[in-house]
């Protein structure tokens, strides 16, 4: 259950949305993407209601542990999502994205033949197909090996360099630390901390250096949660 969630995401930043299991990260993301509706309140994206086509035209979304149409090839899958964005030059867009996520050679394979890492990359590709201004990634690093995580992190940083705003949830704190500008911590459906990563890590700790992981554990313990 979420309570009084209020988040402002700045344009062009990478925002890490962190919290223990069951804290409400995925529920928040589902509300932002219009998959569920809040009991009360409003969610706007770029000033438009989340469920409007205008808002959806500007977002790209990768769900947690995504499953895709397993009998479609990688190329067909991306083409479907490109057409849903009404891209006239979808052929070029699909081709260049497949190359960018390193799946050009596997584009003719059906998705059931893809590895976990390949699925995550084609998932990112479908999120990017409409050249979104806001990229929402739910646990994009979970279940990946170190190479897979590096590839996804690189893609996130490339998008950031292009000026895309990125909102992502993660359990993998060292990786989140490597790519985030700001973070928000959610515990039991409530946002307990939001701010600039460097400032937050200094706030309220005695040691000079603290990792995001150590800081996160402190924050959760401060809320009286066992982890």
């Amino acid at each position, binding site marked *: 259950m979420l309570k009084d969630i209020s988040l402002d995401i700045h344009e062009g930043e990478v925002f890490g949305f962190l919290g223990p299991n069951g804290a409400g990260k995925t529920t928040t993301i589902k509300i932002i*993407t219009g*998959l569920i509706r809040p009991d009360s309140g409003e969610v706007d994206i770029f000033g438009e209601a989340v469920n409007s086509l205008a808002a*959806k035209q500007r977002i790209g979304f990768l769900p947690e542990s995504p499953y*895709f149409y397993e009998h479609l090839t990688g190329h067909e899958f991306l083409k479907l999502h490109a057409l*849903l964005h009404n891209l006239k030059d979808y052929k070029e867009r699909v081709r260049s994205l497949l190359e960018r996520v390193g799946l050009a050679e596997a584009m003719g394979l*059906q998705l059931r033949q893809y590895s976990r890492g390949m699925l995550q990359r084609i998932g990112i590709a479908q999120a990017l197909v409409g050249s979104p201004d806001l990229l929402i990634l739910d646990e994009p690093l979970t279940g990946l090996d170190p190479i897979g995580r590096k590839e996804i992190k690189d893609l996130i940083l490339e998008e950031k360099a292009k000026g895309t705003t990125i909102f992502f949830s993660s359990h993998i704190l060292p990786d989140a630390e490597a790519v985030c500008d700001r973070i928000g911590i959610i515990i039991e459906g409530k946002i307990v901390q939001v701010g600039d990563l460097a400032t937050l890590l200094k706030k309220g700790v005695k040691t000079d250096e603290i990792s995001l992981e150590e800081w996160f554990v402190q924050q959760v313990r401060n809320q009286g949660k066992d982890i």
Partner: protein
Amino acid sequence: MHRVIAILENTFKESIRQKILLLLVVFAILLIGISLFLEPFALGEASKIMRDFGLAAASLFGILTTIIIGSTLIRKDVEKKTIYTVLSKPVKRSEVILGKFLGLSALVTLLVLAMLMMQQLVIFAYEGAFDPRLLIALPFTIIEVMVLLGILLLFSSFSSTTMTSIMGVIFFVVGHAMPDLKLFADQAGVALLKYVAYGLYYVLPNLENFNLRIELAYGLPLYADQILFSICYGVMYITFLLYLTTLVFEGREFK
């Protein structure tokens, strides 16, 4: 409309590549094959029985494919979360429903057409000539398939796959028992029973409206008013079912 076509194409490809379809095609070929061996049992009526049996087989094949694939069409997308990426795109939920409906309808149309063509080949092998009049059965079989698919989509937008397929079979059986229900209503002695039976008769889909098998197999005449009524009835029923499905699906939350 381009978004509906994109989903139509996706549904068509995803469905045609399912292994279960291969089984159904083998079953269909077997059904048509059986009609080759009917002659010794047909007591001189082989040509009519071959036609009747072939039309029934094509219709049954279309219905079975629709129930088996149609009952998982939305449910599987929701359970496997494949619907999440689609719904996060600038697409209306009604377009998703329509695209899926048209995609599977297109596939079943192709399959039933292929089966009717096989039947034509069997007739040609026996009689040295085709009987193209039998192809009139195609649009009516497809309207029946679409009505049933509308029912399956409606149930699968809120119910489980098993329940949806059971409802599909029930509506298919009941839909073809409508003349019996009408007879029962006409003859029922108890007023309440009579009203209930009439109520069900007018509300439930009368799939016998799309059954021209006897007329086509036995060379009986077809009447324009009967054909027109069947088409209008089918189109109205399908529109109503798709509208209801969209209403349910629009309100659906994906927790």
